[in-house]
């Protein structure tokens, strides 16, 4: 573990310099999420100089760390105390940082049952487009004073300010975790998931890979064993979920472009060219397809979802309706009036 280091002054100086010189900044930690969003120019601002866990009290269920802290370090510290980040954030490479986790807002297989990255954000420190280091939210579970800027920053890809520190709610690890596979057709798998979703089942991950439905059960010994017996199926190694989260399953080796489809959880099987892998119990589907963006987005929009391409390009994120885009621009202008933070990373106009 590297020595902790508070580099907020240096980060503030770099932002002030950018404001004074009118230079755009490209905020970067481990650079593991660069395949998402539009290509950026601008000077690199490396958050990794600002790292270290600031406070962690397992009985408070709160961890506060600087943005450049490696995610791996945080997970190790939590693990040693029998706790975890319930949203299971994907690293997508070595050196992923806390700042990148929050700025990208990506969550792993447990997301539909436990919540997303933003659900666990309690507070942030942020350097704004006015060159100020400010604090929003805090280290308490409930806090409705002022606007919830901390959660707004989650998933904003650095476009609204530079996150320097984050407080997260963490949870105890479940006492028991087992996984299993059931050989089912896709329609049947989705049908079963819809039924189980209405019952108090200890499911914490559900993925259909074209041949089998893979399930993870987490909870107390009693509920997990009972569900395991009820469902039957073949034993599955728990490592499967990490491979899914990190896109290391064979499905992801397909050379076609990767798309993430976010859908209402009870969407029936979607007809699209290419191959699909169902995650999040149906609410997230991975697509490997050569089809053009317009075709994919038309099909996905028609069922109330949206599609993100996991490859850099001009339209990696699903386009916004005109009115909504206008409020995005308005918010960007207010919070980053000179447009120095990752301009255009999400949308050309923002």
């Amino acid at each position: 573990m590297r020595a902790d280091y508070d580099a907020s002054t240096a980060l503030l100086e770099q932002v002030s310099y950018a404001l004074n010189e009118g230079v755009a900044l490209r905020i970067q930690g481990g650079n593991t999420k660069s395949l998402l969003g539009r290509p950026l120019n601008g000077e690199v601002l490396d958050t990794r100089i600002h790292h270290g866990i600031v406070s962690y009290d397992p009985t408070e269920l709160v961890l506060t760390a600087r943005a450049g802290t490696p995610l791996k370090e945080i997970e190790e510290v939590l693990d040693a105390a029998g706790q975890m980040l319930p949203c299971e954030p994907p690293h997508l490479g070595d050196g992923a940082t806390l700042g990148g986790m929050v700025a990208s807002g990506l969550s792993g297989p447990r997301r539909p049952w436990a919540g997303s990255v933003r659900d666990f954000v309690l507070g942030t420190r942020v350097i704004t487009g006015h060159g100020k280091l400010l604090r929003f939210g805090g280290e308490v579970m409930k806090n409705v004073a002022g606007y919830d800027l901390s959660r707004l920053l989650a998933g904003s890809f650095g476009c609204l300010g530079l996150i320097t520190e984050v407080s997260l709610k963490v949870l105890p690890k479940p006492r028991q975790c087992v996984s299993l596979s059931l050989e089912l057709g896709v329609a049947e798998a989705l049908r079963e998931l819809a039924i189980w979703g209405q019952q108090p089942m200890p499911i914490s991950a559900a993925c259909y890979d074209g041949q089998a439905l893979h399930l993870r059960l987490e909870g107390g010994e009693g509920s997990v064993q009972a569900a395991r017996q009820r469902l039957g199926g073949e034993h599955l190694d728990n490592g499967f979920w990490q491979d899914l989260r990190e896109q290391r399953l064979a499905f992801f080796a397909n050379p076609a472009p990767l798309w993430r489809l976010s859908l209402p959880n009870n969407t029936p099987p979607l007809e699209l060219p290419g191959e699909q892998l169902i995650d999040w119990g149906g609410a997230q589907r991975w697509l490997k397809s050569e089809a053009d963006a317009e075709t994919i987005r038309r099909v996905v929009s028609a069922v109330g979802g949206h599609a993100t391409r996991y490859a850099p390009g001009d339209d990696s994120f699903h386009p916004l309706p005109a009115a909504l885009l206008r409020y995005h621009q308005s918010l960007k202008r207010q919070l980053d009036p000179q447009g120095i933070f990752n301009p255009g990373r999400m949308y050309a106009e923002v």
Partner: protein
Amino acid sequence: MNILYDERLDGALPKVDKAALLAELREALPDLEILHSQEDLKPYECDGLSAYRTMPMLVVLPERIEQVETLLKLCHARNVPVVARGAGTGLSGGALPLEQGILLVMARFNRILEVNPAGRFARVQPGVRNLAISQAAAPYDLYYAPDPSSQIACSIGGNVAENAGGVHCLKYGLTVHNLLKVDILTIEGERITLGSDALDAPGFDLLALFTGSEGMLGVVTEVTVKLLPKPQVAKVLLAAFDSVEKAGRAVGDIIAAGIIPGGLEMMDNLSIRAAEDFIHAGYPVDAAAILLCELDGVEADVQEDCARVEAVLKAAGATDVRLARDEAERARFWAGRKNAFPAVGRISPDYYCMDGTIPRRELPRVLNGIAKLSEEFGLRVANVFHAGDGNMHPLILFDANVPGELERAEAIGGKILELCVEVGGSITGEHGVGREKINQMCAQFNSDEITLFHAVKAAFDPQRLLNPGKNIPTLHRCAEFGAMHVHHGQLPFPELERF
């Protein structure tokens, strides 16, 4: 201290000609019900914080979203302030009307549009009551998790505006964690959708920003909430302690044992006695504090957890631990807690309910601080506490008929909130800032932070027509309040006059 809108501190409001506006509204919206006479307006002069009252200029009661759209467009064009309100049960004056503004009552939008068990969501109009959603989902063994104690009356639109909580937040989250999608109208009368039918939406997380924004950014026109399967069983343990410190430590011990209870509540002796007198819940009236710990989920897990929690409570020094024997006793244990406010109302002519949050480890220090303030101000304070998530509800007992007592109650309330900020907490956990805590915002945030909040507001409503004067204080008010230098507890707060 007068907390009503003060143009000197809160900014000038546009001057509106009531007769002209009324005539114009009637022409543009002939089928809209508009209240304008003094006796008709009277019932709308306050929300759940009834100590603060202002007569609205006009009250409108639309029944179709198109009417709201036309109304907002007109108000935007004519520069007329608008305060939106649902059931009006809020406790921070968030729906307090303006003399120079329209009160937009959304209560008639009370239809449940869709309950979709397979999709585990319900789509409802903003005036639907919180509890009505769970009732509509009950035939499918599903429910809507956030359960503010006003759930029988409060509406979901107001829950979104306030990011309402309840007693089960530690495990099941606040309103923001249980929403999929919110349709809103902006002050320009533009319809936008925040969130989506999927678990996320492209772009910035405006749904998170909007939730808890207290009607400052837009008006809620439709809400899609997540539904959860009802827990198979719920069991409640009641533990008595001879000191609040021990009870506070026991809470940390339960969590350290890896258990997240569905509910975890603490009451101090004054609240215990008041509740017991009122409800006869079977509480031990000689205990310094009690903990109520509810464990819910699948039967086998709940049994195991009960045994674990019982052992933890005993090890933490509980003088007595009781498991509710049956559903009737469980309901009784909860009834005492859920009726703590009216119970306190029986032992005091008036009470004032506070809503601060603190890191749990600071509980002994804050309770000691409250006891000292109580002595200093000569007013009794009963404490009920969502112990699991650090949300305190000190109840300040006073008599409004005794000259000066209301002012003293407000003053001690302000001090308690500043104490919460000093230990790293927040001035409001679930009731909102509204008008009530507008001054304490200056203690929790510095001027740059408040300036950024105003920037967020300007992105949606640059003319500040939606609910002006709520949630975010002007810098002028903070300067006058004089607490700008008390920030994040870095400095002890000085003795300040409130006015």
